[in-house]
């Protein structure tokens, strides 16, 4: 079985890619995709520690992963709803164009 | 050749084949043999199904159906397959090459994966996962992506419209599909399909079989499951994605040649997988309906029921017109979903009332469960029934 550090390094690379995705891309949906990747990296860690950890029978790791998956799905749903509402208002999803906080700002 | 040996003929054949091979390769190769067996039988069944469909539809419409290629049109599937192979595989110029190519593969792959858990006969289930039902739904979750890839990649108005309709329909019908299986899982207490099939074995002494479909909640669950399965496979009254009269062939409009045949095969395999699951969950998997019919081999029962369900699919396709997109959605969310939840309650009432020892217990249990199912059904469809109904016409 591959030793634990390999798993952790894999999940941290995945986390870094997700973080890069959030910071580098302009499109709001890409930010959400980046967040998804980061959440999945965290799940990977949970399972790795559950597998190599001591109390494997207690299935704490898997429980964490199940709840994390459910909440991540909920978060994505709300995030995308926000993006769609933003698009209807501003006709754009570019993150750095949606910077005006005043409500009455005309869509540029 | 005793009945048991016929029953296990395929299992023994596989063991014999495996014994010839070297020890180390054995686990890997047994999986390969299983895969080959599934692919072989279901590809053949797909070919036979296209012929049965066209002849069945023909006979329903008082005509012959294909009878030119080979005796009684038996070689028609071969001719169709050959035609599909040599047909030019057109790639529209504005299409997205890679995704256009991957779409049929994703679709067929995800449908084929779902066959890994279906028990085709006594200990003939390829893998006995203890989360079999969950695996089945997880595997067929990727079909929506395949439909989307096909619709979006060909970049034509009709295919996009068809893909959107297809995905919306598949997602809204996946919920009633999953919820109607919960009743069975709750009663058997296990997700493994083999165990569910075992629970429905006819008891040695009694004549009456113990299929779940003989119980009120089982019958309702079976009907809900089949309605959702018909919609999931885009067939008969729900074949909206390729609504011929409106948007030609939906997401498959820009495909030709073998890729179109793959889509076609994907649809049929999806239909077989869904009816395979329905057979295992409600119709007693590979068991005979009644004890005295037990002599026939188990795999015979599975495939007999599969062909019976295929006949029902063809029958529906020959008779019923298509629902409109919004009616389809309303039907799924406002009728099918609540009904599957009510079915769960009925299953619960049924299993807990098993302990009644009063004389008329059987009838009361049936009446209560049936009433528990029929009243909400009528109540839920009251709005629709008020608006739609036969009319009386006056004469001038």
């Amino acid at each position, binding site marked *: 079985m591959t030793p634990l550090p390999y798993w952790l390094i894999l999940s941290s690379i995945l986390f870094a890619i997700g973080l890069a995705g959030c910071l580098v891309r302009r499109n709001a949906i890409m930010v959400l995709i980046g967040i998804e990747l980061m959440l999945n990296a965290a799940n990977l860690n949970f399972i790795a520690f559950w597998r190599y950890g001591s109390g494997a029978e207690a299935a704490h790791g898997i429980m964490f992963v199940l709840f994390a998956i459910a909440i991540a799905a909920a978060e994505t749903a709300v995030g995308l709803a926000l993006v769609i509402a933003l698009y209807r208002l501003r006709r754009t999803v570019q993150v750095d164009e949606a910077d005006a906080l005043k409500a009455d700002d005309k869509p540029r | 050749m005793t009945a048991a040996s016929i029953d296990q003929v395929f299992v023994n054949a596989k063991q014999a084949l495996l014994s010839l091979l070297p020890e180390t390769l054995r686990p890997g190769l047994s999986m390969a043999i299983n895969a080959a067996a599934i692919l072989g039988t279901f590809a053949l069944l797909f070919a036979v199904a296209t012929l049965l469909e066209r002849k069945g539809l023909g006979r329903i419409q008082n005509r012959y159906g294909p009878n030119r290629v080979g005796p009684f049109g038996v070689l028609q599937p071969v001719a169709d397959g050959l035609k599909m192979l040599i047909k030019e595989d057109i790639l529209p110029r504005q299409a997205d090459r890679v995704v256009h190519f991957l779409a049929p593969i994703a679709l067929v792959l995800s449908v084929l994966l779902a066959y890994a858990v279906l028990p085709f006969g006594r200990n003939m289930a390829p893998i006995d996962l203890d989360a079999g039902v969950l695996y089945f739904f997880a595997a067929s979750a990727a079909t929506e992506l395949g439909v989307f890839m096909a619709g979006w990649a060909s970049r034509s108005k009709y295919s996009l419209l068809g893909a959107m309709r297809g995905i919306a329909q598949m997602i809204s019908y996946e919920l009633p599909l999953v919820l109607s299986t919960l009743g069975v899982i709750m009663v058997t207490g296990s997700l493994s399909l083999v165990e569910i099939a075992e629970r429905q074995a006819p008891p040695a002494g009694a004549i009456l079989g113990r299929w779940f479909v003989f119980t009120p909640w089982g019958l309702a669950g079976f009907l809900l499951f089949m309605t959702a399965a018909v919609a999931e496979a885009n067939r008969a009254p729900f074949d909206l994605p390729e609504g011929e009269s409106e948007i*030609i062939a939906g997401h498959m409009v820009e495909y030709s040649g073998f890729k179109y045949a793959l889509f076609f095969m994907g649809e049929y395999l999806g239909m077989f997988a869904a009816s395979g699951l329905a057979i295992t969950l409600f119709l007693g998997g590979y068991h005979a309906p009644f004890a005295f019919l037990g002599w026939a081999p188990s795999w015979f029962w599975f495939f007999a029921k599969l062909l019976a369900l295929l006949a029902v699919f063809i029958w529906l396709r020959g*008779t019923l*017109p*298509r*629902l409109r997109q919004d009616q389809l959605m309303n039907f799924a969310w406002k009728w099918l979903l609540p009904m599957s939840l009510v079915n769960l309650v009925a299953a619960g009432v049924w299993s807990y009332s098993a302990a009644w020892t009063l004389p008329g217990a059987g009838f009361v249990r049936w009446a209560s469960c049936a009433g528990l199912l029929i009243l909400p059904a009528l109540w839920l469809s009251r709005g629709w029934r008020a608006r739609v109904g036969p009319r009386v016409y006056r004469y001038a």
Partner: protein
Amino acid sequence: MSAAPPSAPLPAGAAIDRDLLEISLGPHHPSTHGVFRMDVVLDGERVVRLKPVFGYLHRNHEKLAEGMTYLSSMPFTDRLDYFCSMTNNWAYALAVEKLAGLQVPDRAQYIRVIVGELTRLLNHACLIGFLTHDMGAMGTPLMYAFREREKILDLFESLSGSRMMCNYMRFGGCRVDLSPAWLQAARKVVDDFPRFLDEFDALLTTNEIVMTRSQGVGILPRELAINASVTGPMLRASGVDYDLRKVDRYGIYDRFDFRVPLGEHGDVYDRIMIRFLEMRESLTILRQALREIPPGPILDPKSKLRGFRPRAGEVYGRIEAPKGELGFYLVSDGSPNPYRYRVRPPSLINLTILEDMCLGQLVADAVIILGSVDIVLGEVDR
């Protein structure tokens, strides 16, 4: 829910900013009953604008008729509404008889009623078949309708020589007399038809999916129907009591008692049911006609085959064709060729209000509404 409030119709040429989808359904489209195109602008799946485009099957029928004798353009009337060639012939013959003042003998009148009502049967049966095919019932009702249509077409073939292009009526009567064997075969067809109708009824009218798909869809209000001079089953489905067989009493329709069914909602379901009930009424007319048909001549002795020069003047003859009021307006200047020859096609005029019925409905409904209007492109384009 089904009669969703139609969104505001788009003014022509408005800047399409609400990212609408422009689709052209046809001319090469599986459900437009021939070469007919609808330019549809969709907001999502809802029809926002619909422009019918036709003329793909225009064969210059009216200008041709001005160059030929009256008799020569009779076979061309078969090609107008190629589903009901007998009623086309009858309308043209009626107009010319009114112009030339010919008296049609009784037996010819009975023959005309019999073949006219047989045509109405096959037209309504085929229409319902095509309509349910558009709804998605993979051709099963259509095949049953065609099976019955073949029986009637065999009758026409043994009578006039050709199944669909009968060219059977002449000015002042008919060309061939009915043989007793033909009458016997016709009575058998008329006696078997109710069994088919009951089967068709059971298959379609109470079918929940057909009802859900067609009730409340494509509503045609009374005023719009009357203003747009819609005629035929579509008009009666909107509740207007106007049937030329009762209004004009042309031919010998006053000798038969039959009823005219009326709808109240004017939606697609009403149009289907009106055609069903009209088929049953046609059956009663046919039974009476087949029972009372007298012997006698089938052609007015004064009618001349060649060198036929009607008096100068103009005339408008019309009949209740299965699709509506089919009229012929003839202007004659005494020469063997008509000076002006005009056909009033019911399909074209029923088609003008297609957009009003389709606004706000979904694409799937637009196809069904077009199907319920019952158009045949031969008549629309002439």
